[in-house]
């Protein structure tokens, strides 16, 4: 379980998050929606230590992780599939997956069955299997997104953060990505999903939070939010 309480963060003097609180219960999927610039990505960056929070608390499985570095947070079991995929372009697909399991391979996290997990990733993303010796930089956008997700899953995380997995993908691929999120949900993966496709995100989620200008504007059960007229007109209307 991931619990964020009154989190304040920003870049230099510019505050982006003005005290937000979000709870991601164990085994549940939580969608974080909102328009461009609302602070969704900044929230995820603050959670995974890419950005140092100014105040507030973040607890992962009861332990305070606010202010730790990203490698420390990752080793504690928070995986982050970042905005823009950020795959290691000069390394083959296979090495990208192995690096996802770096803490498991180097003794800072329970090792488990790394080879078995790689095979499970290939089942979940059959395209990665075909391309496993190919350099990640030569993959298509959709394949890179799948690799970024698979790489994050290789941590065997307690909580998975997904930042805009649908960004820049064709409608058919977006659908494919959401099917995978659905499958992960079925195996009780705890997820915080940031999405511009608000309707689709709420569809696969248990709970939703709507962000606006660095504040949480409203939150609740996903299906309730989906039917909320105010949310509908602002975020679920035309274009999405």
């Amino acid at each position, binding site marked *: 379980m991931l619990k964020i309480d009154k989190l304040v963060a920003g870049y230099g003097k510019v505050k982006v998050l003005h005290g937000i609180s979000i709870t991601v219960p164990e085994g549940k999927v939580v969608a974080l929606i909102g328009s461009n610039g609302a602070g969704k990505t900044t929230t995820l960056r603050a959670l995974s230590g890419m950005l140092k929070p100014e105040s507030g608390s973040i607890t992962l499985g009861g332990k305070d992780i606010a202010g730790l570095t990203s490698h420390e947070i*990752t080793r504690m079991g928070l995986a982050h599939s970042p905005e823009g995929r950020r795959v290691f372009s000069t390394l083959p697909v296979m090495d990208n997956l192995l690096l996802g399991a770096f803490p498991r391979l180097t003794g800072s996290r329970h090792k488990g069955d790394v080879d078995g997990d790689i095979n499970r990733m290939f089942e979940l993303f059959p395209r990665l299997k075909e391309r496993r010796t190919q350099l990640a930089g030569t993959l298509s956008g959709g394949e890179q997104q799948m690799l970024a997700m698979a790489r994050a899953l290789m941590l065997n995380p307690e909580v998975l953060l997904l930042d805009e997995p649908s960004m820049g993908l064709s409608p058919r691929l977006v659908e494919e990505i959401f099917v995978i999120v659905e499958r992960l949900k079925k195996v009780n993966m705890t997820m915080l999903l940031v999405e511009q496709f608000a309707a689709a995100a709420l569809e696969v989620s248990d709970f939703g939070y709507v962000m606006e200008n660095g504040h949480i504007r409203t939150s609740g059960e996903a299906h309730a939010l989906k039917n909320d007229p105010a949310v509908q007109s602002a975020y679920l209307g035309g274009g999405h």
Partner: protein
Amino acid sequence: MQILMQLIVSGISVGMIYGVIGFGYQLTFATSKTLNFGQGEALMLGALVGLTTINFLIGQQIGTFWAYVIMLPVVLAFGALQGSVVEWLGVRPAMRAKSEAGWIMATIALGIIFKNLAENIWGRDALKFPSPLPEASLSFGGIRIQPMEIVVVVGAIALMLGVEFFNRRSIYGKAVVATSNDRDAAGLMGINTNRIITFSYALSSMSAAFAGVLVAPVTLTGATMGAVLGLKAFAVAIIGGLSSGMGVVIGGLILGITETLTGYYISTGYKDVPGLVLLLIVLSLKPSGLFGKAAIKKV
């Protein structure tokens, strides 16, 4: 023709030394976008520590060849330590302060300090380094090669292949490549990227120290031997492209061979000119180096 071949062969051995030092620049540039401007001094310190060690061992009635072999790990360990110190004192504070140029002054300053230190310990004179192999040249179809020149080439290639093998095969090596690709994303994999950068500095100075004890028996050694070599290797790294380990080696060979050719056909007085001319040409035509990938700086 025979003279030409002879010059090329000599150029290769000189070029390999430039290549190894340049390779060291490339190692730290890849992970941290910084480099050690005291790389020449790392080479000099390696050679002088090697000299003291080998003389001590010879004093213990160990033959020169075995003394040289035993001395190698000592020098490599010393180089790694020295590189870590440079990173820790000169580079990390500048990176923490997000200073774009602080590390340049800091590594130059550390280089000068190391040189002064060496002058006080080993004096200012050039010193003779015992050669582990006979100094008489071997002749291959009229082309004469010193046995130590072969060791230089083989040693340089072995070092670079070793690093390449480590990067491709071990998970720690892959972590180094991942850090070079995208430092933030590497952090998200649970990789301590600060430690990777320290490691790349250690490896970089280790390469320089290794180059120092490779070249020392062929030339002479002394507190001032590093400055020119470090600068030329820097030119080589720029010519080859700082983003390509292979490019740096080829850059080294190009510079080594042009130098020996100029020295013979034009004048030894102009020996240093063609390399620098080449540097200027590469900088104006292909600033990322002959083999470098053009970096796109995202704003």
